């Protein structure tokens, strides 16, 4: 098969899937940070995202520490 056009057809849809994935990641990072600044717990963020607490922790902890957000301890939830 000759190389398909980089525009039109599946190329547009595949590019859109890739762009949306990047936007979803950026939006998640921004909103998790916003929630934690507002005092949400890891569990609340996880529940709202529909993932486990561990998953949120693993993905965002280092970044939130860098942002110097005061994170709630587990027993303070």
């Amino acid at each position, binding site marked *: 098969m000759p190389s398909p056009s980089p525009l039109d057809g599946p190329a547009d*849809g595949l590019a859109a899937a890739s*762009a949306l994935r990047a*936007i979803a990641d950026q*939006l998640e990072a921004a909103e998790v940070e916003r929630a934690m600044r507002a005092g949400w717990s890891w569990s609340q963020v996880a529940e709202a995202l529909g993932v486990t607490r561990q998953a949120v922790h693993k993905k965002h902890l280092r970044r939130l520490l860098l*942002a110097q957000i005061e994170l709630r301890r587990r027993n303070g939830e």
Partner: protein
Amino acid sequence: MNRLLAARRLAPVLVAWGIPPGVAHQFEIEAKQDGAKVVEAEHMLLALTAISDGEVAALLHEAGLDHERLESALTEERRRTLAFAGMKAPDRALVAATELESPLSLGTSAKAAFKRALIGARRERHRVHLRTKDLLAGILEAELGTVPRALAIAGIDRVTLASRASGLK
């Protein structure tokens, strides 16, 4: 090469391969300005259009591809891509988050461009030393993805430019 491409600090690796330090540094600047976490092929091409003299600058100038034209083509590519899914690009402020200050690494499209550039350089000279021109060819040889989409939108003849860059004419 894969080990080199995974190196923590990108710029020294690129410089060791023969990419001028200013250009290697510009890759990261372009990626950061785009809000990207990794350097992709479009950031490298943007950086190459920012070079003011030499063979690559002459080739790009002849093809009418300057920084401003490429940037607006990339913006239009993004608009068109998101419009396919019924979306507009979100405001930068909406998706602004604190980023880890880790050095940038090469994304998949950038690695692919480097691999093609190295293959081209070896074919011609039997040594692993890249000229910026080889890298330009490697970037332009991608047939699908953001760079060929943006170039098609800008009306740039990618195939001709790629073969000029690789010296095949």
